[in-house]
């Protein structure tokens, strides 16, 4: 890579101690001290340039590592002649920058020659454009003009940066800025290249990795990139796996990171918790979030995910505690609003819940989860049209949001349009091919449309991909029962019962009694009296099936008496149910 080679010397002369930053390319976690040193130096570099989010990330990670003894601390950055010359202007500009007076900062930096000043100069101009754009948006004339508001500075910045880029004069930070500018101009391909270059030039700047992460859409693209071989790359890959829903791989990555010494990092804990949430391993996720809150009680990030988990488990007091706690910290945060929305939703105060999701959206209209959650609230309030709107918005923000597609399907299902909702369920299924909920929903719709073959296929597939709600088999069995396919129905009931008993936990809607009742009758009809009586006895354990169980037992004993007289052997067609190892 030509650019990477040409840039590296620039960095070294500009920050001499980045020698150890570059040395980190020999990826090992063996030397945590080295990593800590690198983190400390990159923190100060980012701080000087106003890259607050990267500073935060690096600091969190540095905090998780053991403190260094005094003599091990990295030396503070050495000055070049240019740096010394620009020092006053830089100091002044930085203070303006911190006060969000970007134009003023840029003005005082315009003549400076050092790389640091140049970055701050360009960055101020960029931020000034962004700020003006946001102000404009509020002040725009009409709905159509909304999309037209642009950051006017972007094109100029791009022209200047591309000149410097082709001359090879950009360092890691300016490369990062160049990439951001390109991304904002929708030149995504170029942006990816530049971000990759930026990570090569300065691997420790997390911002560049994060931007790259947003641009990668699939695993093939990820594999095709040539990334620097550095320990931070593992963080990136793990993050990427989470984004691409490859949860198993992500968890493995994070586990190995923990084992190599980052066990105290709140960042990793939160990421793992989110990953568990994504695969709906609720207990694990809850435990991790609780741990996280103990370590970092004033944390607001990811708390919306935490509240989702609490909501799913209907843990009202915990959710209430969390909501009040967060309001105490900062009530105008998207996450806080989402938590409160969830809280009200759990208390069935759906109007208020919707209100808070709206507030979250006002704070950040691109907040995908809030649109979908608001859709759910409107569904609860039976305001289907508003729900459809909310879901549609969610889809507009992210076409791959399967929950919104699923929600739309549900809406139409409630409106009794099973054929119409098929399209939406199919979309959702496409996005999550291994999620049983979509498959069950599809199956139900097909069943309503009397498309029995498709319905059976869906239910069976839902079972094979790991049925979460454990409804697919029951539905399949009932469908078979309806179609008088008694062998198949019995088979399904058998698997269903084994499934329910083996999973151990008690499910509210489990219909073991139904299954037992049917099986009892079935065995009885097929003259397998042993099994039939076993099922009938089990039936007696359930209130709703007790009478029938007893009746069946009586019938069996009658027939048996009769049989002993005639003494014929029945033909065995279906394997008997083995219940001996399970206890209800």
């Amino acid at each position: 890579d030509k650019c990477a080679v040409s840039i590296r010397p620039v960095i070294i002369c500009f920050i001499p101690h980045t020698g150890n930053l570059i040395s980190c390319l020999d990826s090992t976690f063996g030397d945590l001290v080295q990593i800590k040193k690198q983190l400390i130096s990159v923190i100060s570099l980012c701080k000087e340039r106003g890259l607050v989010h990267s500073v935060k990330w690096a600091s969190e990670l540095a905090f998780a590592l053991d403190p260094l003894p005094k003599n091990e601390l990295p030396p503070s950055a050495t000055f070049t002649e240019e740096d010394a010359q620009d020092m006053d202007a830089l100091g002044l500009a930085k203070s303006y920058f911190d006060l969000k007076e970007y134009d003023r900062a840029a003005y005082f930096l315009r003549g400076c020659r050092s790389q640091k000043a140049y970055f701050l100069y360009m960055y101020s101009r960029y931020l000034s454009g962004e700020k003006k754009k946001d102000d404009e948006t509020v002040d725009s004339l009409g709905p159509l003009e909304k999309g037209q508001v642009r950051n006017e500075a972007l094109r100029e910045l791009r022209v200047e940066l591309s000149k410097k880029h082709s001359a090879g004069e950009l360092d890691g930070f300016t490369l990062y800025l160049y990439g951001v500018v390109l991304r904002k101009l929708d030149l995504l391909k170029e942006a990816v290249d530049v971000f990759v270059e930026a990570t090569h030039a300065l691997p420790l700047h997390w911002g560049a990795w994060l931007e790259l992460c947003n641009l990668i859409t699939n695993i093939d693209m990820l594999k095709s990139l040539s990334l620097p071989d550095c320990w931070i790359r593992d963080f990136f890959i793990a993050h990427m796996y989470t984004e691409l829903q490859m949860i198993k791989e992500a968890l493995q990555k994070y586990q190995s990171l923990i084992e190599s010494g980052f066990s105290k990092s709140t960042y990793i804990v939160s990421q793992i918790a989110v990953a568990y949430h994504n695969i709906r391993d609720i207990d694990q996720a809850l435990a991790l979030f609780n741990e996280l809150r103990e370590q970092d009680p004033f944390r607001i990030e990811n708390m919306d995910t935490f509240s989702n988990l609490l909501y799913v488990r209907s843990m009202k007091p915990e959710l209430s505690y969390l909501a009040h706690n967060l309001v105490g910290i900062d009530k105008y945060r998207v996450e806080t609003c989402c938590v409160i929305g969830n809280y009200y939703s759990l208390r069935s105060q759906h109007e208020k819940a919707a209100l808070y999701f709206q507030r979250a959206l006002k704070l950040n209209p691109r907040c995908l989860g809030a649109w979908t959650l608001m859709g759910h609230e409107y569904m609860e309030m039976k305001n289907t049209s508003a729900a459809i709107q909310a879901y549609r918005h969610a889809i507009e923000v992210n076409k791959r949001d399967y929950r919104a597609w699923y929600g739309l399907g549900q809406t139409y299902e409630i409106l009794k349009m099973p054929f119409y909702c098929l399209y939406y369920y199919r979309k959702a299924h496409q996005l999550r091919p291994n999620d049983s909920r979509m498959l069950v929903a599809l199956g139900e719709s097909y069943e309503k449309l009397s498309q029995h073959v498709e319905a059976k296929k869906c239910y069976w597939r839902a079972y094979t991909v790991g049925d979460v709600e454990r409804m697919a088999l029951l539905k399949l069995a009932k469908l078979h029962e309806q179609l008088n396919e008694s062998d198949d129905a019995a088979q399904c009931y058998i698997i269903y019962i084994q499934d329910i008993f083996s999973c151990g936990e008690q499910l509210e809607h489990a219909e073991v009694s139904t299954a037992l009742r049917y099986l009892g009758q079935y065995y009885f009809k097929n003259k397998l009296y042993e099994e039939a009586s076993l099922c009938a006895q089990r039936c007696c354990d359930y209130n709703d099936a007790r009478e029938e169980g007893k009746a069946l037992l009586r019938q069996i004993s009658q027939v048996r008496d009769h049989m002993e007289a005639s003494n014929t052997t029945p033909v065995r067609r279906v394997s008997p149910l083995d219940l001996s190892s399970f206890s209800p």
Partner: protein
Amino acid sequence: MASVHESLYFNPMMTNGVVHANVFGIKDWVTPYKISVLALLYEMTTSKPIALQERRRLNKLILPLQQGPDLTLDQFLKTVEECCPQTAYAVKLRLHEMADGELKDMEYFFATLPTPFSAIDSEAYKTSVVGLFMRHMLLAYNKLSFSQVYKLYKALQQYYHSHYSQPGDVQVGLAADDSDMDLTSTEDNVGERMEKEELDTRPEVVDRGPLSQKQAEYFLARQAYLLKNDENKALKPSALQDELNNMLKFNPDFAEAHYLSYLNSMRVQDIFISTHSLLHYFDRLILSGSEGKSNGDEGYGRSLRYAALNLAALHCRFGHYQQADLALQEAIRIAQESNDHVCLQHCLSWLYTLEQMKGSDSSVLTEDSVKMAAHFCLPYLVSLGIQSLVQQGAVQGKTAHELMDALKDTDILHWKHSLSELIDISLAQTTSIWRMYGKSTMAQQQAQLLLNMNSLEQVNFGVQQNNTEAFAVALCHLAELHAEQGLYGAVSEVLKHLKEQFPPHTQHAKLWMLCDLKIQFDRAMNDGKYHLAEPHVTAIAALNKTEGLYRKAQVLKALNRTTEAYSILQRLQLYCEKTKYTEMIIRVMLVTAELHWESSGFATALPLLLQALALARQHHLQALASETILHLAFTQLMLGVPEQALGVLHEAMEPILAHGAVMDKGRALLLAARCQMAMAGTRSNGQRHAALGLAVQSLGEAAAYFSMLDCKERLRDVHYLQARLHHTLGQTPQRNKCAMLFRLLDQELQAPGAAVPLL
């Protein structure tokens, strides 16, 4: 970092969770272009009298300028200049004053605009088109905040100066100095700008500003109208999709754009995007319909029903009958639940259409639909149902007067309610029915009537509706009628027009494709070029399976592959009897009879032909009946009863000469001549001469008809017979001439293996 800044952004249109596309009721706003239009209007109202012709041209310009998308100043001034150079100059001057002056100049301009409320006599009266536009603009301008006014002024300056900064523009003098002042850096200005342009990968897309809601509505209405009425004049599918995507990028809430996108993707048969757009459209519609209305008749429940119905229609278009059926049932169920009879009627008419498309008998359903639609006063659906019934009736052999009566009744209904689309269909249907009955003149007359009729619909955008199925059908009939008369020049003209009007990817293109193939096939068969006819068979079979099989049997018969041909014909007959396709049954019988001839089984052919004749007469298919009689006469001739044959033939001669194709005329005359010759053999000498003279005459006419079609094989036979006759009559020079003609043709046609048509 990005998210932090985006969080400043909020959506002012959102109230109570529903984003209203237009909460302020602003459909339009001031742009530099609009200021130019205002300046033009101002000049037109205030300046000294303009010549009448120029004024008229300017007046014609106003509406397109108001409604169209924003133009650059160049385009705008050019358009105005074409009408009236003097006004264009005045407008330019006024813009110059504003752009090169100060902000107050623009404010002054708006202040001096004639207010539509005060000026009662002027054209800018408050309810006029111009007045309304000015009021919109004034209102929008007055609503602008301080910074917005300044922004508008900046935009105006840029708009004005971009006009002059283009390289090669001669009129730089007017503003060159000032434009330089505006830009901060001095020297590498041009270079930088060039570079910027170079760097811009998609200059066109970036430069196109968003349309205001008014402009967008106008654009959509225009394109939708063009799509419906004359697709060729609408934007190309990809270009239109680009425009729509652009529009949706700026305003995702603009639901109508989704519908147009649905129509557009239907053009290119893209089921994926069309389904997506259709559902998206209805998702959006459900919202807009929900405001203040209940779930009942008018609210979003209504759009739900129609959403399902439209989905059914979509699947119908793509031939997914099962899906369509399910969607339709859903629509019917929801409509029943909410007692929406109108929607139910629409569903019912789709239901019988679907049944028809699936190939099952749906006349009972259709009758019900007609009755119910009449009950609910839905004239469109009533007459659509009747037309569908007529079509079914015609195929099933209802008597002609019943059908014509029904069509006449619907016509009264159409004219009463001005249903121009149905009038077209009715005329096309009459054409088809006449054609089926074998009355070519009537068919031709009806087709011409349709093509020459002025539609009742308003002519918008200079386009008359002429791309419906009715037109395609009429034109195809016209082409086939001309082909029958051997006017192939006219045929190719008609087909060329069809190809232009209905490009191959469109819905009705299959009609002319089939028609074209049939004509080519018939020509090749008549010329005896069976190797040319063969490839057409595959193409025809792709468009119409039955027709394809029938043609295949014909080719096989011509190539002497009798057994294969026979098995195909048997299969075809069974199939057609099942689907009650009478015309095809008769045709199949005729070809089967011809096959019997080949094996000299004339006696076995006879009952078959009689059966065919009975069928043809029962269904009033005159053309087919005549052809059957020809076959019958030939069979009798071969069985040695020429008197009988001639008697039968005379029955068919009149209708064939009046309505038949040239080919049939020639065949009939040739057959007549042969019968006369056969009869002459039994007569006395004097009578014999007279009879032979008659035969010569018939042969002459037949030769004329055959040469019209360039049908060489038959021509050769005719010349042979002519030569023989002349020989018998002792007319040596004529004999020699005919013999020479025969010899020439015979040399040309040295293709062994192929069968010579007997009849």
